[in-house]
């Protein structure tokens, strides 16, 4: 299959790699770039484990073509920590919001976009924001609490 060069910004740094036409962004990031933070859950856009941020919006990387990110800004969970852990990661740890951890990178991405847009979300806002991310361990409560706590912390800071 023909390969195309793709140049994009990943977590603030310019990256370039060849992607086969038809390759999805999830496989491109994991195998082509070596960023293992987006997870392969279902491969059909129902679980949210592969959620990444493209130009400030959440996208399911398993349903996005790698060649479609040419020139765009992509953020993944591996870029959240910048010298120290991100407040969302801190809150996820504090609230025991992960057990097996497979959904966590996707949850963090959905949560980040929510808080970037809405610094004072209600519980209902948080539930809506993570409604595309499945979790099988926590019962969601600790995740919702962690996201609300991050918003509260930011308002106090």
């Amino acid at each position, binding site marked *: 299959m023909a390969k195309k060069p793709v140049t994009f910004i990943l977590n603030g740094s310019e990256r370039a790699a060849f992607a086969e036409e038809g390759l999805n962004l999830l496989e491109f990031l994991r195998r082509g770039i070596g960023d293992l933070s987006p997870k392969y*859950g*279902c491969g*059909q856009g*129902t*679980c949210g484990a592969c959620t990444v941020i493209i130009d400030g919006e959440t996208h399911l990387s398993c349903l996005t073509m790698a060649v479609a990110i040419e020139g765009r800004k992509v953020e993944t969970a591996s870029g959240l920590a910048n010298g120290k852990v991100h407040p969302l990661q801190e809150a996820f740890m504090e609230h*025991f919001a*992960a*057990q*097996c*951890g497979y959904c966590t990178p996707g949850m963090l991405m959905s949560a980040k976009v929510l808080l970037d847009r809405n610094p004072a979300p209600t519980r209902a806002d*948080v*539930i*809506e924001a*993570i*409604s595309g991310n*499945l*979790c*099988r*361990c*926590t*019962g*969601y*409560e*600790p*995740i*919702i609490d962690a996201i609300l706590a991050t918003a509260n912390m930011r308002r106090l800071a």
Partner: protein
Amino acid sequence: MAMHRGRGFASINYPIGMNLGGDPSQALVHSNPDGKFTVALSSIDLGQGMKSVTRQIAAETLGIPVADVYVDTADSDTGPHCMGSFASRGTHRVGNAVIQAAQEARAVMLEAAAEELEVDATDLVTDGRGNIHVKGATSRSITTMAACQAAQFKQGRTVSGRGIFLIPLSEVDPETGEMTPVSCFAHAAMLVEVEVDDETGEVSVLDMQSAYEVGRALNPRLVEQQLVGGAWMGMSHALWETTEPYYPDRSHGPVDFNNYLMPGPGDLAPHHISVLERPAPDGPFGGKGPGEMCANPVLPAVANAVYDAVGVRIDELPITPEKVLRGIRANGGARPKMRLTRTQFAGAR
């Protein structure tokens, strides 16, 4: 057409691990050249906290800081045998094996310290902060690191220990048939409130009140995490999840997340939990296992609440809108249970 509210109660006894005898788990503990300890297991941490709790148990038994213990696990090539992480057995079975292994390693560590301090090992105690000292004389002390290094580089000892936990075979009394199949029980009780729509058959869980008796909660935050997540999964099994919706007919079986029903973050019910701690005599520091029994009381409690709400007794899970509606039709309509006021209840007795 109306919404009907109902309440259901259930209580359970949950036997920890596989029973009737056997169910072994092993642990190996050894000190490294830096004086820190490695616990080798092949038990799996699925996220439930096996590594955290065995680390705590090893540190407590060895008498050293938790930071000085590393748990190496999940590889059956390098770890000693374990039956596995299931049946809520991890804390109880593996924890007991870790205690036995850590006790043996601790004894060697104290002998090594005794040789260095020129005292009797039975006079030594650990302070849990990385020091070993003579009972009543804290100035006569040696660090656990120095003791372990002396053992390995001067005295020629391995600071190590072996542990296994094995339930003795339960013999059947030939006359009465009596036996002791179970060595350790956890308990739970739960009250669930539901709302049932008699037009659609849909059931919503409004509230869950529970009490879980887990022995000693060795790591209270992990116990709470297990109970919150596990009870949610119980609710999910009560109302949504099945791989065989028309068992034994295999048709309509779900093949992916698109048609495997499970609740999302919008389908949660408030859950008020009380953790009761009654240490288990045969548990590691009194711990039992909160694993599977988090989910168990939810299913019968929801079934009872549906019966209370609309008079439909459903004995096949999950309690789908289809089953509720068929039951309501068979009864000729919803039959909410009669609610007695407190005074009527007292009068009726």
